[in-house]
């Protein structure tokens, strides 16, 4: 039997690229359209640059959004619906008193991302468009080459689920499940037009084509729903108090009529290529006061849709079991006990 394999390493370096720095959304959209599929936009670069070093993506042209006017900052009022520019850094959001007071769920999600240093560079837009992750993918080129690559990049087998037609790399954004749960809307602009979609419509259950956004579309604004008697929260499972990507995220939202739940939404992050809605669990809460029984029932129901596969830190079974505990915790947050 013959086998072959080698593993060669030298310091990981960025691939070569051309850098463009547009000043306006229109210019950026045009540059993106002109440069075609080998172009990519870059915001804080905390996800894209490491990926380029590992040769997951090797864009020939990078369009930096740092100088684009009107893409940064928080405007509007909570009651009217806050509007957030995608280039707003995570640190800026964390420090924004209005966001913290009116959207504690979003604030918690943002605050839980990586480390203060990365939050200084990382943006909300980048977090929303974050690449999916997998233990077989988040490796350098040589490591991946030694296993003959995988379907998501350069290869054709999925090592997590060899029979699978789709890649199961997980959505690892902390804000995604929360934005889906609260019903945030996203504004997309391209050289040919613009549109607005619900946050959950952005994501697809395919680890390779995980965004429904076209490559030539820019995310230009995140619109939060008006605050009027609803609450939201976010819970995150990880090993450490800092640094770690979520291996489970729970975004939960409920609107109330007095103490009674009128409507609820729960989205699970980091268990699938897209944030997963635990619709039955949420429905079971309607009409309850989030009393312990109702919470327990909903947590049990949320266990079903969570189908993690073995491609992140922690054992799969563990992550699935923790769904119950974490959903319960999130619902207790909403009850405000």
């Amino acid at each position, binding site marked *: 039997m013959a086998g072959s*394999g080698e593993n*060669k390493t030298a310091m990981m370096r960025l691939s070569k690229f051309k850098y463009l720095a547009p000043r306006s959304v229109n210019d950026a959209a045009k540059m993106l359209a002109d440069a075609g599929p080998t172009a990519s936009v870059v915001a804080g670069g905390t996800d894209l640059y490491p990926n380029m070093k590992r040769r997951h993506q090797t864009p020939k042209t990078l369009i930096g959004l740092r100088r684009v006017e009107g893409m940064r900052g928080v405007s509007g009022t909570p009651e009217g619906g806050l509007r957030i520019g995608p280039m707003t850094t995570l640190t800026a959001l964390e420090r924004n008193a209005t966001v913290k007071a009116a959207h504690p769920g979003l604030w918690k999600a943002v605050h839980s991302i990586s480390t203060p240093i990365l939050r200084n560079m990382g943006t909300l837009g980048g977090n929303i468009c974050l690449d999916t992750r997998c233990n077989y993918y988040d490796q350098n080129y040589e490591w991946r080459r030694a296993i003959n690559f995988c379907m998501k990049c350069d290869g054709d087998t999925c090592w997590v689920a060899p029979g699978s037609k789709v890649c199961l790399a997980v959505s690892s954004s902390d804000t995604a499940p929360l934005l889906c749960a609260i019903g945030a809307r996203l504004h997309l602009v391209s050289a040919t037009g613009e549109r607005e979609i619900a946050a959950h419509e952005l994501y697809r259950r395919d680890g390779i084509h995980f965004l429904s956004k076209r490559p030539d579309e820019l995310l230009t604004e995140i619109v939060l729903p008006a605050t009027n008697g609803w609450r939201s929260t976010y819970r995150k499972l990880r090993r450490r108090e800092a640094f770690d990507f979520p291996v489970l995220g729970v975004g939960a939202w409920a609107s109330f009529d007095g103490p009674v739940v009128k409507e609820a939404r729960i989205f699970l992050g980091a268990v699938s290529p897209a944030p997963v809605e635990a619709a039955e669990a949420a429905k079971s809460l309607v009409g309850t006061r989030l009393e312990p029984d109702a919470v327990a029932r909903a947590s049990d129901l949320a266990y079903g849709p969570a189908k993690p596969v073995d491609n992140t830190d922690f054992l799969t079974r563990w992550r699935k079991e923790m769904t119950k505990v974490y959903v319960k915790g999130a619902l207790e947050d909403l009850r405000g006990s």
Partner: protein
Amino acid sequence: MIAPSVGLPLPRTDGFDKVTGRAAYVDDLRVPGCLHGATIRSTIPHGRLRRIRRDPAFDWSGFTFVTAADIPGQNVIALITDDQPALVDGIIRHAEEPVCLLAHRDRERLLAGLRAVTLECDPLPAALTIREGLARKAKIYGRDNIFKEIRIRKGEVRTAFRGAHRIVEGTFRTGLQEQLYIETNGMIAIPERGGRMSVLGSLQCPYYVHKALKRLLGVGDDRVRVVQTTTGGGFGGKEEYPSMLAAHCALLARKAGKPVKIVYDRLEDLAATTKRHPSVVRHRTAVSREGRLLGMDIDVLMDGGAYLTLSPVVLSRGAIHAAGPYRCENLAIRARAVATNTPPNGAFRGFGAPQTIFAVEMQLNRIARALRIDPVELRRRNVLRPGDSTATGQVLDAGASGPLVLEEAVRRSGWSVRRASFTKRAPPDPERASKAPRKGTASGRIRRGLGLSLFYHGAGFTGIGEVYLDSHASLAVTRDGSVEIHTASTEIGQGMRTTFAQIVGDELGLPPSMVRLAPQDTSLVPNSGPTVASRTCMIVGKILANAAADLRDALVQWAGDSPRRAPGRRATRGPWNPQQFRRLASAWVRKTGPKVFTRKYDRPPGMKWDEKEYRGDAYGAFGWGVNVAEVEVDAETFEIRVPRVDVVLEIGTVVNPLLAQGQAEGGTLQGVGYALTEEVVRKNGRMANAQLTNYIIPTTADTPEFRTTLLSNAYRHGPFGAKGMGELPLDGPGPAIAAAIENALGVSIVELPITPERLAKAIRARPAHE
């Protein structure tokens, strides 16, 4: 007259340059004409290398390519045994084994070149675990895959078991751990005109590299020069591995006729370099009704990886510490280091002791539960006291500080009150009662627990190791009248630059700022032995103190003076103030020529060691310690937090309390990672989590509050009474945290790291402990 500096919390002399970015690490050095080198490694754990294929269509101009055939001397990394090649020659014995090397001026080209090389191999069955190694699933080393077997015997074990009130058994496991120095391994080799090969890099032991390169290149002493550059941490990880990297750089540089630099990225460093040995330790203990240890039968297995490297000595220290700091007149310890098809494991702070101390401490807790004796009380009854003898029969003198650290820790940590309050559980929470993980332990969701560990750690090389090392160290007086330390001991963040200057300064009656350190360059400084084994301050520091005394006496004599000894002043201090010394010393050198005072290691009188029987005085001195760890465990998710650890260490005279505290806290935190999160995941013998995002070390946010107490019981043969302390702090956190979790949840912990998944499994699988 200046005040003594030993005992003062002086800041590290190298600290400022490091935090301001001024210190030059190996990758910061600009060497004209330097090529970048890279290593082509195996991806299979065992196999026959058939061919190295270089793509003929690729443009190979400007490349240097090295295989085993290019080695001028012997294809070995000389250390203890000559089993490890510098480059694979025929048989691949572990994944990530270096097969061939490439160098090029341009890093992009280098990457392209790497991709144009293919290894053709015939895989062989691989033994990836201790069990598979023992079962000889693959033939790796000798006839039985045993690198080394050690037996320690004392008294009559069989008789002791016959007369026992109870016999308690337990098997305990620990995993791999990465040293995780901040600066990855890096080296530059520079071929010099006269044929000498100079190697500069991040390393702990210049003379280890020196020895390895001489054999590899087949040249004499003066044809190899090794220089340490500013080193960003070692923890044992730069004890033996730098010889491998230096060999690779030197081979490329020799063939290219140009300097070659290799700096590993984190992935390569994690995947390919040495780790702490995994262990399986089985205990059988015969105890009396009162909990006296009548007999101990201990079996230690360690996974050495594919080559011997330092495994015999790691095993030796593990075996000697396996019975813990306890009195037991009848014991049998059998320890074996087993070969497996995995990257060689090697030196790591603690050097075998953290593994066996974890096991013996957990075994003691088990005994305490079986006999319903408080764990502190059980330790009180068995801890070694002056006059008692250790497992190897070493009789301890007044330096046996076990009782001292134990009582001090119990008092300072508020052990009794806190333990009682954690053990008395809160009334069950009705809302969660139905979901509590186990009946009978139901209470609030966050369970708190307190655990304690008692440990000791021998400083310096084991047995007659220090005699074999025959370390030399010198002091030179310069023309400007200052004093220069010449040792091969390296600063790796532990603070030896500062402590050496304090020791020598005090011996001479000078401020430490007047004492300089010569570069760690084998062409300039004598071999003061490796910077390992908690030996630098205690052993090399003492040699320097002796050299300083010689210097002082000679200078005093030359000056026609005799040391004036004012009452109450340290007897050894000189009769001069710094200005006088400078003038005097400068005149001395100018008038009578260069002055160098060299001393070598003096074995403390009366020390005896029988290497064959493993009996006698294993170490000149032991450091002693107790950790009291508090944990909070979420009873639903089993997530574990460690809010507070009380650290009580007895380390002899504390030369520099600031540095000692740094060592204590850093070592304890490294132990927290070992206990809870650090786990190497391997797939077919290759590390699958070789990144800092998934090899999980504690961050600042996970750091407990440390309450550190340093006690001193001066060691007669250490400089000013100091003992070694570098490794000691890592021995205690694993068992203390595990004990605290046992206390919080009422389970039995038998394995590190204690991840939430493992804990959940333990709770579901096993009945609550006795």
